[in-house]
C-alpha cells in the first residue's frame, strides 16, 4: 500500500549490501558467478535473477564440504525466493525462504545470511497481512545484525519496521524508527537517500510539510551527487506534490519542469505521475480545461478498479478537476476509486495497528534496556523503590490501564466507522494519541506483572521450600507424605501460572529470547513425557509414545520445546477421561512434527482458532471444570512461531483432538562419543553427587547408589568398571560388613576406591582380605581422585596402596 512508495527505494537496499559471508569460503566459480548475477539482476529483471538462483543451486552441488554446500543451497534458495516474489510467485517464494531459513538458522544462526533471509521472510509475512510475524522476523534480523555488529543491517531492519508502522498510520512511531535507523548508520548515499525520502514522506503524512520539504531537498542534493536521474525524478515529484499542497504554485511548476529536464527517459508510470501533478498545478492556476487534458492523459488506459495508494493524490486531483469542468460521471468514478483506496488503507491500518500492539518491538523498551545497561546500579535502585510502592496503588494503575485499553479499542473502532477521507485524516491525530496511551498502558502492565511476579514468588518460596524439605525426609509417614504432596503440587501449579504470565508479557514486548544450542530432541521429548505416565495410569488412560522417528541431535531451544510438549500433553490428559493419549514424532521434509492425539472432549470447529488466543479456553465453562489459565496454548503457538514453526490443531467435538507442533529442525551429526567406562559411586550427599557428576563428565558415565545393598544389586547387573565409596554411605550397617559385601560383588576385576576421613583411623581388620581397595584420605581434591582413577599409569600403584592400608 503506501509503503510501496517507500519500498521503491528501500527494497533495493535489502539486496545491495547483502553478501552471504557464511557461504563464501572458496565456492566453485560457477556458483559465485550465478549468485552475483542473481543479485545484480534482482531489481532490473527478477525473472532472469530467478534463473541465476536456480543455476547457483545447481552449481552448489559441486561443493565438497557438506556444511558449505548446505549454506550455498540456502543462499540460492533465498535469492530464488526474493526473485519469485518479485514476479508474483509468492507461494514458491515462501517455500524457498522457509527452507533457506531452516538451514541457515541451524548451520549459521549468527550470520548475515540468516539476517537477510529474515528480512525477506518479514516482507512475505507482511504481504500476507501477518504483521506480528513480520515484526518478529524484522526484530530477529535486527538482533542478528546487532550481534554481528553490522549497523547497516540494523538500519535496514529498522527501516522495515518503520514501514510497518507507516502501514498502521502510526507515523510518529515510524518517524522514530527512521530516525533510529539514520542514527545507527550513515554510511552510504543510497541508504541515506532512502531514509531522507521516507522521513519526508512520513512528515508529509503528519501534515508537517515544511519539515518534509527540508528532508526532500537534502535527498535531492544527494541524488544529484549520485548522478541518478531516476531518483532525482522520484524525489522531484514528491517535492512538487508537497509544494502544491502548500499552495506554492510557482515553485511547484519550476520543480515539475526540472523533473522533466533531468529525466527525459522516464517510464510510463513516471510520466503518468508527473502529469497528474502538473494537472493539479494547472487546476490551482485556475485553468481547469488544460488540467482536464493533462489528467485525461495521466489516466489514459488505466483501469480505475485496480489503482493503488500510489495514485491516491492523482485520483483526488482528477475528482476536483472533472467536477470543476462539469464531467460529473468521470468525477464520480474517481471519487469511488479514492474511497476504495481509503477503505483499503484504513482496513490495513486498523489490522496492522492491532497486530503491532499485540506484538510490538517497543522502541521505548529498547531505550529503557540501553539505559538499564548503561546504569545498571541506578536502575536497580529505582526498581527497588518501585517494589516498595503500595499494592493498592498498583491495582489502581492496573484498573486505569484496563480502562484506557478499552477506550483505546473503542476509539479505533469508531475510526474504522468513519467513511470520508477528511474524517479519517482528522482521526489520525486522535489515533496517534490513542496509540501513545496504549503504549503507556502496556508499559504499566509490564511493570505490574514484573512486580506481582516478584511478590508472589517470595511467599511461594516459603511454601515450596518447606514441602520439598519435608518430602526429602525419608521418615515422613505415608499419610502425611500424601498431604504434603498435594500441597507441593498446588505450589508447583501456582509457580507455572506466574511463569506463564511472565512469558506472555515477554512475548508481547518482543523480549523473548531463544537459545540456539545443540541438544538431543528425542531425549528431551521422552523426559518431558515421562512425567505423564503416572498421571495417565492414575486416570486409567492409555499413554502411547512413538519416538522411533524422532531426530536425536538438533540445534534449538530445548527448554522451550520441552515447555510446549509438556503443555500439549498436560492439556491432552486434562481433557481426556477415557481412552488414549498418543505422542508421535515424525520427520518431515521441512523439519520435525510432534503430534499429541487424545480421545477427549474435543473442540467445536468454530472455536479452533480461539483456543490459541491468550486467556481463552474453548468454553468459559471449561475453565471452571478443568482449571488452567488458558494461556498455555497461546504461549505454545507463539513460542513455536518464534522458532520458525507452528502449533496447529485438528479436532472433532466429542471425539478428541490432535495438536501438532511442527518445527524446522534438522538432524545434526551427533558428536562422536568415545566409549566411556561406567563408574558406580556410593554417595548420599546431593551436593557431592553433583560434584562427582561434574568431575567425571569427561571420563566416565556415572551411576549412584545410596547404600551397600543398592551397590551390590547394581554390581550384580554388571557393566561397572570402577567403584568409588564415600565413607558416609556405608556407616549405618557397619563398615566392615558393607565393604566385604561390596568387594565380593565387585570381584577381582572391578577396582574399589574408598574415601575415608584422614582424622579417623581405619581398622585394617575391617578391610576385606582379598578385595582390591585403594584408600583416599579426605579432605582431598576431587580432581586428584579422578586423575588417580582414570590415569592408566597410576593403576598399577593400586596394589601397593592396598598393602599399605591393610
Amino acid at each position, binding site marked *: 500500500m503506501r509503503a510501496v512508495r517507500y519500498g521503491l527505494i528501500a527494497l533495493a537496499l535489502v539486496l545491495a549490501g547483502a553478501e552471504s559471508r557464511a557461504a563464501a569460503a572458496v565456492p566453485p566459480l560457477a556458483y559465485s558467478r550465478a549468485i552475483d548475477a542473481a543479485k545484480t539482476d534482482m531489481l532490473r529483471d527478477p525473472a532472469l535473477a530467478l534463473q541465476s538462483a536456480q543455476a547457483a543451486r545447481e552449481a552448489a552441488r559441486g561443493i565438497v564440504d557438506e556444511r558449505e554446500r548446505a549454506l550455498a543451497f540456502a543462499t540460492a534458495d533465498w535469492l530464488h525466493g526474493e526473485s519469485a516474489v518479485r514476479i508474483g510467485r509468492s507461494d514458491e517464494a515462501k517455500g524457498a525462504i522457509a527452507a533457506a531459513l531452516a538451514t541457515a538458522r541451524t548451520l549459521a544462526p549468527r550470520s548475515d545470511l540468516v539476517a537477510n533471509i529474515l528480512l525477506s521472510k518479514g516482507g512475505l509475512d507482511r504481504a500476507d497481512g501477518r504483521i506480528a510475524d513480520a515484526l518478529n522476523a524484522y526484530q530477529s534480523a535486527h538482533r542478528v545484525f546487532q550481534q554481528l555488529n553490522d549497523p547497516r543491517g540494523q538500519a535496514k531492519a529498522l527501516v522495515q519496521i518503520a514501514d510497518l508502522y507507516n502501514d498502521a498510520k502510526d507515523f510518529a512511531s515510524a518517524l522514530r524508527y527512521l530516525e533510529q535507523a539514520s542514527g545507527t548508520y550513515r554510511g552510504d548515499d543510497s541508504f541515506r537517500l532512502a531514509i531522507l525520502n521516507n522521513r519526508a514522506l512520513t512528515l508529509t503524512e503528519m501534515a508537517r510539510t515544511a519539515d518534509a520539504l527540508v528532508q526532500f531537498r537534502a535527498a535531492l542534493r544527494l541524488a544529484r551527487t549520485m548522478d541518478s536521474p531516476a531518483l532525482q525524478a522520484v524525489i522531484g515529484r514528491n517535492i512538487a506534490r508537497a509544494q502544491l499542497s502548500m499552495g506554492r504554485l510557482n515553485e511547484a511548476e519550476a520543480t515539475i519542469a526540472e523533473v522533466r529536464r533531468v529525466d527525459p527517459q522516464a517510464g510510463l508510470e513516471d510520466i503518468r505521475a508527473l502529469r497528474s501533478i502538473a494537472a493539479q498545478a494547472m487546476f490551482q492556476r485556475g485553468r481547469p480545461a488544460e488540467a482536464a487534458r493533462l489528467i485525461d492523459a495521466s489516466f489514459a488506459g488505466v483501469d480505475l478498479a485496480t489503482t493503488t495508494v500510489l495514485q491516491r493524490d492523482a485520483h483526488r486531483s482528477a475528482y476536483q478537476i472533472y467536477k470543476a469542468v462539469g464531467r460529473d460521471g468521470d468525477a464520480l468514478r474517481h471519487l469511488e476509486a479514492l474511497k476504495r483506496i481509503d477503505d483499503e488503507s484504513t482496513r490495513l491500518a486498523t489490522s496492522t495497528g492491532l497486530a503491532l500492539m499485540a506484538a510490538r518491538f517497543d522502541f521505548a523498551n529498547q531505550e529503557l534496556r540501553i539505559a538499564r545497561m548503561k546504569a545498571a546500579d541506578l536502575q536497580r535502585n529505582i526498581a527497588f523503590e518501585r517494589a516498595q510502592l503500595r499494592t493498592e496503588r498498583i491495582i489502581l494503575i492496573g484498573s486505569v490501564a484496563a480502562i484506557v485499553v478499552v477506550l483505546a479499542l473503542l476509539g479505533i473502532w469508531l475510526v474504522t466507522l468513519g467513511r470520508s477521507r477528511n474524517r479519517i485524516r482528522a482521526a489520525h491525530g486522535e489515533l496517534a494519541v490513542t496509540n501513545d496511551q496504549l503504549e503507556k498502558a502496556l508499559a504499566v502492565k509490564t511493570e505490574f506483572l514484573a512486580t506481582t511476579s516478584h511478590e508472589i514468588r517470595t511467599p511461594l518460596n516459603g511454601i515450596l521450600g518447606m514441602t520439598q524439605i519435608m518430602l526429602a525426609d525419608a521418615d515422613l509417614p505415608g499419610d502425611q507424605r500424601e498431604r504434603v504432596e498435594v500441597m507441593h503440587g498446588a505450589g508447583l501449579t501456582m509457580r507455572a501460572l506466574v511463569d506463564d504470565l511472565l512469558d506472555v508479557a515477554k512475548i508481547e514486548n518482543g523480549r523473548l529470547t531463544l537459545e540456539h544450542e545443540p541438544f538431543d530432541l528425542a531425549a528431551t521429548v521422552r523426559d518431558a513425557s515421562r512425567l505423564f505416565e503416572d498421571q495417565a495410569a492414575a486416570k486409567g488412560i492409555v499413554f502411547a509414545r512413538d519416538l522411533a522417528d524422532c531426530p536425536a541431535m538438533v540445534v534449538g531451544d530445548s527448554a522451550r520445546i520441552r515447555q510446549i510438549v509438556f503443555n500439549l500433553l498436560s492439556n491432552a490428559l486434562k481433557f481426556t477421561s477415557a481412552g488414549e493419549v498418543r505422542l508421535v514424532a515424525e520427520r518431515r521434509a521441512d523439519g520435525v512434527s510432534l503430534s499429541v492425539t487424545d480421545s477427549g472432549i474435543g473442540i467445536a470447529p468454530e472455536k479452533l482458532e480461539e483456543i490459541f488466543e491468550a486467556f481463552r479456553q474453548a468454553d468459559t465453562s471449561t475453565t471452571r471444570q478443568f482449571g488452567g489459565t488458558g494461556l498455555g496454548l497461546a504461549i505454545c503457538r507463539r513460542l513455536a512461531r518464534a522458532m520458525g514453526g507452528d502449533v496447529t490443531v485438528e479436532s472433532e467435538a466429542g471425539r478428541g483432538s490432535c495438536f501438532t507442533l511442527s518445527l524446522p529442525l534438522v538432524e545434526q551429526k551427533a558428536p562422536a562419543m568415545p566409549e566411556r567406562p561406567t563408574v558406580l559411586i556410593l554417595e548420599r550427599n546431593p551436593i557431592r553427587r553433583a560434584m562427582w557428576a561434574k568431575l567425571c563428565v569427561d571420563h566416565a558415565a556415572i551411576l549412584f547408589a545410596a547404600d551397600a545393598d543398592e551397590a551390590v544389586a547394581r554390581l550384580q547387573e554388571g557393566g561397572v568398571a570402577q567403584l568409588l565409596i564415600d565413607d558416609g554411605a556405608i556407616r549405618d550397617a557397619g563398615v566392615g560388613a558393607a565393604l566385604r559385601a561390596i568387594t565380593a560383588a565387585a570381584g577381582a576385576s572391578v577396582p574399589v576406591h574408598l574415601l575415608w576421613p584422614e582424622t579417623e583411623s581405619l581398622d585394617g581388620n575391617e578391610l576385606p582380605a582379598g578385595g582390591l581397595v585403594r584408600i583416599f584420605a579426605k579432605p582431598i581434591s*576431587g580432581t586428584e581422585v579422578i586423575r588417580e582413577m582414570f590415569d592408566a599409569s597410576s593403576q598399577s600403584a593400586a596394589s601397593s596402596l592396598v598393602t599399605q592400608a591393610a
Partner: protein
Amino acid sequence: MNVLFIEDDRMNRRVVRDMLDVAGAAMAEAETAEIGLEMIDRDDYHMILIDLRMPGMDGITAIRHIRARGDAKAEVPIIVVTADSGVDLRERCLSAGADDVIVKPVAMDQLFESMGRILAGDRGGAIIS
C-alpha cells in the same frame, strides 16, 4: 561445608538453611549486604548465596565488592538467589561475577546441582571433605 546466605527476608533464610541441612551443609546468615561483607572479612566460607534486592547495598554491588578483594576470598563461589525474573537478569549477575543464578521459588535439586557443579569447578577447587 560452610555456606553464607546474605538475604533480608527471614523466611527465605530459614527455608534455605533447612534445605542445606538436608545436604549436611552449615549455613551462616547475614541480613544485609554490609553485614555479609564484614562476615566474609572475618570468616572463611566455601560458598556465598546472595539475594539481589535488599535495603542498603544491593546484591550486585556486594558481588562486585567481593570479586574486587585483593585476597584469596575474592574467588569464593557465589550463587544469586532471587525472585526477579528480568530478561537480562542472568547476564547482569554473571557479568558482576556471580557463578550461577537461581530463581525463587528455589528448587532444592537445582540448588544442590548448582552448588556441586560450581564446587567441582575452578572456583570451588573441587575439594571433597
